[in-house]
């Protein structure tokens, strides 16, 4: 059979194997939409709590975003295959979601969400931990850069002024949630276009 098979075809088969194995292991890029959603929700919550001065800003936005995430994720994850890697990454983000939800629901309703520095430091530290762990497992440099940005936000929240702390936090949300999320969606779409449909 290989008499009729060109070297280019053989190379094509080899790259097909590599791309398909990588495709099976890919998890985070399919979640670009969730990063964008939560980035937008953080902005909404910050704006509502800053100008509306409402204790409900964080609980309501977090609860709504959590419900949307659960509904959309259950539709998408229903088709995802089980992998150890997938479970590891999923566990990190699920634990993050529960921690953030309880933290902001509790702090918001109790009215103790008053120290901006502490608030930014805690949320940035949690997001830095999740992004860092996920990046190290996936060996994904782009996501590790996001983790570093969140860690910079933690330090700035501890030692910077009110303005510095809030600006770095807003920039971190923009870069690590919205830009990173859009990057994930685009990367997934481009990969699909590049490969095209497979035939027997």
């Amino acid at each position, binding site marked *: *059979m*290989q008499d009729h*098979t060109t*070297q280019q075809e*053989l*190379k094509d*088969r*080899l790259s*097909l*194997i590599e791309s*398909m*194995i*990588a*495709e*099976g*292991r890919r998890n985070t890029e399919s979640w670009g939409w969730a990063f964008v959603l939560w980035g937008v929700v953080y902005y909404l919550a910050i704006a509502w709590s800053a100008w509306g001065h409402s204790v409900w800003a964080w609980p309501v936005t977090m609860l709504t975003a959590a419900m949307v995430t659960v509904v959309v994720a259950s539709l998408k994850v*229903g*088709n*995802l*295959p*089980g*992998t*150890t890697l997938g479970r590891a990454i999923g566990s990190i983000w699920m634990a993050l979601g529960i921690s953030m939800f309880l933290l902001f629901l509790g702090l918001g309703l109790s009215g103790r969400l008053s120290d901006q520095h502490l608030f930014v430091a805690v949320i940035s530290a949690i997001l830095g931990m999740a992004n860092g762990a996920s990046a190290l497992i996936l060996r994904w440099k782009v996501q590790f850069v996001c983790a570093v940005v969140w860690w910079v936000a933690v330090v700035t929240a501890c030692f910077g002024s009110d303005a510095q702390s809030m600006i770095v936090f807003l920039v971190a949300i923009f870069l690590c949630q919205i830009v990173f999320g859009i990057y994930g969606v685009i990367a997934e779409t481009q990969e*699909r276009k590049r490969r*095209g*449909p*497979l*035939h*027997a």
Partner: protein
Amino acid sequence: MPDLPALNPVVHGRLRLALLSLLSGVEEAEFTWLRAKTEATDGNLGAQLLKLEEAGYVAVEKKFVLRKPQTLYRITETGRQALIEYVQALKQLLGPAMDA
């Protein structure tokens, strides 16, 4: 000159090779996930999966989850071994051309 290895025709088909490679990286996968990843038609995908099943390279499990039918595929040890041997044969055939 040493004899060149023959490529396993069951594994060599483009879609079948993609399916085996996909399944080698996961524990098990649904038909719909395999269809989304390969962008193959239902008929073609079903036919190629059947060939892999007949060769003993994939195992199929059909079950109901929340009253909805679900078809799960997983690579067997024979299938994994066939894929490994295929990759080895491919590398041997390509030889120095692999770096080009």
